[in-house]
């Protein structure tokens, strides 16, 4: 894309690294405020129980204890809200039971907070929390979404019969899809579980709340992805405190992956308590609490059928999913299995009839919400597993089957966007291109030969494909509003040119690893033709930044970057007026390039820095023009953006032992224009490994009592450095036609594309050895592979 000084498109090294590599980052838990107190929570060990008496007397008498609050103390306060309303098929509003700050009457998942203990030190708070005596009367438990809707299942909330939050449908009428399916020459059917994932940002959630009685002002430091959203939800919907008297700061945040989008009960509770005791209160989750109380991801039980005609063209797709939402609605939980999942089921294919039916269910488990990709990985997993399996069943090459079914290339400018059967209109795409590139990198022509050779040497080689699309750049406010979002999803970008020509950029997005301080500075410095070092990006503080919806859904560059671009354009436009006055010319006759305003066709020019100084020292200045050079813009996108790509995995299975190893991983991603290739590649690496983690290593396990049985790092298998190959990456660029930078977003692509590629590779390896296996439940361990080889 166009650049004035080579900054856009260059792998500029990150400015934020300087503090992180020297230990000078500033994360929430690093902050200690004057008069600091510390909170510890009393959490239920039972997944479902009536709460009897709570005896705090002994705990209150312990050294250093400042206060203890239970559900009764906060019963009058609202619960944390859900930000997206999804209606039942019959039009009824979804069931939305109160999500209380502390449990009242009943606990509904293991780890739910029953009391908060505040003391002078962390140790004192923990000691006292252990001394709080709570009587529980255990109730029957349900953890599985498909079981929870059956008659007689334990009820999580009285107001949600059959544990249903809503049922929901999208696409073509079911009868039409059934009819199309009946014409199919072949139907591939897959019943599978997209298992529950635990996000596991390495920085645990951490909050530090304080109240300034003299000014009636609250400050909350929080490990969040969206400080303004937290301020809005907490002040307006939960605590009922004046928003302009609340400052929310998301300082350095150690990874989010979705789990730090949501407004958590602890944030509001600490803020409320800091006022009650008139001292700052800090809480940082320990890892056990992170496992139990950070919102989880995925957890779908799905039956999917895809029909093909005798040439292998898809004719229909029918999907039924039970989505587990956990015990309470987390902030965006309701839109994940619906508008972020059902809407993606067109995939890259021309399937003419699609129907998706989703039942969202309460269970006695930790709340489930967006986790890197959020709904789109589930949709991609479903489609790409079906595609590879259908190819195997029909005896068609899986790459050839995809080429047969791809939507043809379109740029969204000369050719219109592609209208799907499931509500979205894709912006631009060249889907064949990424698969072709991926096959070249793989050396596919030789692969099947290598596969045969390997089989003779005691190894089963398998290749798996995934050609994915996602909807990012979330989101056009009117569209999401019509679909039930209770917020707008525009972004704010302010560009403040200082008198010396140095520039401060304020963005409502939040960087917690994505490198915005570098990428956004590249954009602004490039467009203004100034040095990279002359731009600083400020984010994360509601007192500095006007507003913002934060960072989620790969939206920061597409929506946040576009808001900044709008302000840059306003700066240049006003700069032209100031420059024209200085040069005694008409503003219309000026052009701005390379950091100078020049009268077209002449050598008369003035520098950007000169114009900036004049704006602040307006002695000789256009009449009727305000001094200063500082603009703020709101950008509401016209559409989602649609990154896409092709991921290919190669696995090797030992025929004797079942030992499974990921040998190669190829990722070809088209994320539109790229500002900083180094950062985009890093996002792909991290995303791919999270997706590989779901395929091979990770997954929450609940027992029938609602106990999370692998809620520690000894038990939950995180991907480690020594179980991964080097990922081979490549890009393709199909610009987004509807935003000024032509960007699509790269944060989630890796996670969305990778999981089915790995699972497909395992299935391919097994088929190559004559083991006709349709599915293995993730995470696929060597043991599961070995067992499959013994039985199939």
């Amino acid at each position, binding site marked *: 894309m166009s650049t004035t000084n080579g900054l856009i498109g260059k*792998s500029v*090294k*990150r400015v*934020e*690294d*300087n*503090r*992180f*590599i*020297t*230990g*000078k*980052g*500033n*994360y929430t*838990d*690093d902050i*200690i405020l004057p008069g600091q107190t510390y909170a510890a929570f009393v959490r239920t060990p039972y997944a479902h129980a009536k709460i009897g008496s709570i005896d705090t007397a002994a705990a209150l008498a312990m050294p250093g204890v400042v206060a203890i609050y239970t559900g009764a103390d906060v019963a009058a306060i609202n619960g944390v809200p859900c930000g997206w309303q999804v209606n039942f098929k019959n039009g009824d509003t979804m069931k939305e039971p109160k999500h209380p700050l502390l449990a009242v009457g009943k606990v509904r998942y293991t780890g739910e907070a029953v009391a908060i203990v505040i003391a002078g030190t*962390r*140790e004192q708070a923990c000691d006292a929390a252990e001394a709080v005596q709570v009587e529980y009367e255990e109730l029957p438990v349900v953890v599985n979404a498909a079981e929870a809707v059956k008659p007689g299942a334990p009820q999580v909330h009285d107001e949600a019969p059959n544990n249903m939050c809503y049922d929901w449908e999208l696409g073509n009428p079911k009868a039409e899809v059934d009819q199309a399916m009946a014409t199919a020459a072949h139907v591939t059917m897959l019943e599978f579980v997209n298992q529950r994932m635990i996000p*596991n*940002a*390495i*920085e*645990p959630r951490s909050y530090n709340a304080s109240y300034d009685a003299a000014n009636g002002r609250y400050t909350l430091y929080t490990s969040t992805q969206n400080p303004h959203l937290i301020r809005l939800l907490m002040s307006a919907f939960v605590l009922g405190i004046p928003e302009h008297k609340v400052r929310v700061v998301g300082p*350095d*945040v*150690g*990874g989010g*992956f979705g789990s730090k989008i949501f407004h958590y009960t602890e944030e509001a509770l600490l803020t409320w308590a800091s006022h009650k005791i008139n001292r700052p209160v800090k809480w*940082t989750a*320990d*890892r056990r609490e992170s496992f139990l109380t950070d919102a989880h991801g995925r957890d779908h039980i799905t039956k999917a059928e895809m029909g093909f005609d005798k040439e292998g063209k898809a004719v229909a797709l029918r999907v039924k999913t039970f989505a587990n939402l956990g015990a309470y609605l987390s902030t965006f939980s309701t839109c994940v299995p619906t508008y972020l999942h059902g809407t993606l089921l067109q995939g890259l294919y021309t399937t003419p009839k699609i129907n998706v039916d989703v039942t969202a269910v309460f269970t006695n488990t930790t709340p489930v919400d967006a986790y890197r990709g959020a709904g789109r990985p589930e949709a991609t997993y479903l489609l790409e597993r079906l595609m590879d399996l259908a190819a195997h069943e029909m005896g068609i090459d899986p790459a050839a089957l995809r080429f047969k079914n791809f939507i043809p290339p379109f740029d969204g400018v000369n050719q219109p966007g592609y209208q799907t059967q499931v509500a979205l209109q894709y912006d631009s795409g060249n889907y064949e291109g990424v698969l072709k590139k991926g096959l070249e990198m793989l050396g596919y022509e030789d692969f099947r030969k290598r596969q045969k050779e390997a089989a003779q040497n005691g190894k089963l080689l398998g290749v798996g494909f995934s050609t994915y699309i996602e909807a990012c750049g979330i989101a056009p406010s009117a569209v999401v509003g019509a679909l039930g979002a209770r917020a707008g999803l525009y972004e704010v970008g302010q560009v403040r040119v200082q008198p010396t020509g140095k520039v401060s950029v304020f963005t409502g997005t939040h960087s*917690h*690893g*994505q*490198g915005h301080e570098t990428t956004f500075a590249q954009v602004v410095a490039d467009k203004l033709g100034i040095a990279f070092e002359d731009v600083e990006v400020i984010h994360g503080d509601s007192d500095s930044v006007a507003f913002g919806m934060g960072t989620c859904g790969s939206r920061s560059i597409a929506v946040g970057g576009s808001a900044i671009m709008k302000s840059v354009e306003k700066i240049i436009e006003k700069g032209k007026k100031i420059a024209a006055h200085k040069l005694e010319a008409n503003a219309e006759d000026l052009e701005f390039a390379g950091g100078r305003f020049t009268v077209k066709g002449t050598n008369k020019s003035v520098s950007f820095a000169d114009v900036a100084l004049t704006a602040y020292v307006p002695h000789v200045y256009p009449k009727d023009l305000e001094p200063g050079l500082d603009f703020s813009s709101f950008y509401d996108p016209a559409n989602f953006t649609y990154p896409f790509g092709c991921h290919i995995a190669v696995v090797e299975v030992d025929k004797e032992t079942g030992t499974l190893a990921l040998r190669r991983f190829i990722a070809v991603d088209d994320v539109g224009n790229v500002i900083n290739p*180094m*950062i985009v*590649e*890093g996002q792909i*690496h*991290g*995303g*791919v*490994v*999270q997706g590989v983690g779901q395929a091979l290593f990770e997954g929450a396990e609940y027992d029938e009592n609602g106990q999370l049985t692998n809620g*520690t*790092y*000894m038990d939950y298998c*995180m*991907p*480690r*450095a*020594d179980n*991964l190959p*080097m*990922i081979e990456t490549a890009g393709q660029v199909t610009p987004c036609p509807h935003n000024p930078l032509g960007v699509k977003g790269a944060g989630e692509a*890796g996670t969305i594309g990778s999981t089915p590629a790995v699972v497909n590779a395992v299935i391919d390896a097994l088929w190559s050895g004559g083991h006709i296996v349709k599915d293995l439940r993730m995470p696929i361990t060597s043991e599961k592979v070995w067992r499959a080889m013994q039985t199939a």
Partner: protein
Amino acid sequence: MQIHVKVNGVEYKHDVEPRLLLVHYLRDVLRLTGTHIGCETSICGACTVHVNGKAAKSCTLFAVQADNCEITTIEGLAQNGELHPLQTSFKEMHGLQCGFCTPGVIMTAADYLKQNPHPTEEEIRTALEGNFCRCTGYQNIVKSVQLAAEKMSESKPVTKEKKEEVVV
């Protein structure tokens, strides 16, 4: 109990509770907050520091166990104002994203490169298996350590054969 420690070259004497963890001593008492806590169970490695020159997970050591020890944290890794080659390499190779695990990873790698100055990719991966990173997928961390190893062997001349190994 009173402890006497030398942290990043500075000597300290403090009275501490016997149960105070070394990581809390570093973070809360000395306010060296570059050392992070990710799991309190010595699995994730975010809290890695050097105790008498060896990498150790400070979340499962008591401060009193560090009595009379020399401790180096990420804040003390740079020498005479010069960043350690690992620090510069992590920036050059984009070996970090959110930065939370980074100090621990760098401290682990710094100790490891002392023991094995010319590691293979596989050896680096094995050496780092006790440090979790959720952002990078480890790829650029491995490359950062490789680059640092190269830089460090350039500054300390090695035999020709050994140098060729490094370049692989």
